[in-house]
């Protein structure tokens, strides 16, 4: 079984500044995928970024980037130049790269508030 831990229930950041969200996970798998999802107050879950464990290069998507440390089982998300629209709950999620296991395991989430 996999567990995903997000140790920061809430984070607040000033507009245009940078915030980093932490995520650690526990697994015996060697190949897997990691995701960050964003859930605004409207509750539609949106994919922010995806990382494949066998790729050493950290994934980036515009202002969003990750720091993937496989040995430490750590997968943090950095939001640069924060915007008011980034206010949301952010979930870290894990899925093993196996054909018979496809369910996402989510962390408890981090609420990010961007202040004007």
């Amino acid at each position, binding site marked *: 079984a996999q567990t*995903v831990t997000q140790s920061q229930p809430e984070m607040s950041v000033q507009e245009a500044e940078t915030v980093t969200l932490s995520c650690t996970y526990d697994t015996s798998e060697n190949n897997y*995928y990691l*995701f960050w*999802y964003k859930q605004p107050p*409207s*509750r*539609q*879950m*949106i*994919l922010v970024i*995806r990382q494949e464990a066998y790729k050493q290069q950290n994934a980036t998507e515009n202002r969003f980037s990750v720091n993937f440390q496989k040995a430490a089982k750590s997968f943090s998300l950095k939001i640069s130049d924060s915007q008011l629209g980034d206010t949301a709950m952010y*979930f870290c*999620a894990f*899925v*093993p*790269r*196996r*054909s018979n*296991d*496809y*369910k*996402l*395991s*989510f*962390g*408890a*989430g981090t609420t990010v508030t961007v202040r004007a």
Partner: protein
Amino acid sequence: GAGVSQSPRYKVAKRGQDVALRCDPISGHVSLFWYQQALGQGPEFLTYFQNEAQLDKSGLPSDRFFAERPEGSVSTLKIQRTQQEDSAVYLCASSLDLGGTDTQYFGPGTRLTVL
């Protein structure tokens, strides 16, 4: 194209009533997932379909929960004899191909409140 849609968006049920929650996945998506999200928590897996076949229902909390996807497209999650602990947001997700290697796209969810 259209994303994943769910209906109703909100449902209030009296304890003991049966409810049915609908999910319309993205057209052509093979995989469909149901998750349950308690207030302030991350989603928890309920069940998984590959086309019309329900391959995994290990997350269904009791035999009062039943899901189907008879034609491999629309899916319905049914909860019989609802209890207060069933109150949650029920999320549906679909992905183009098989399971976890492909990105799951989520619907807006159905918020169920059991009184």
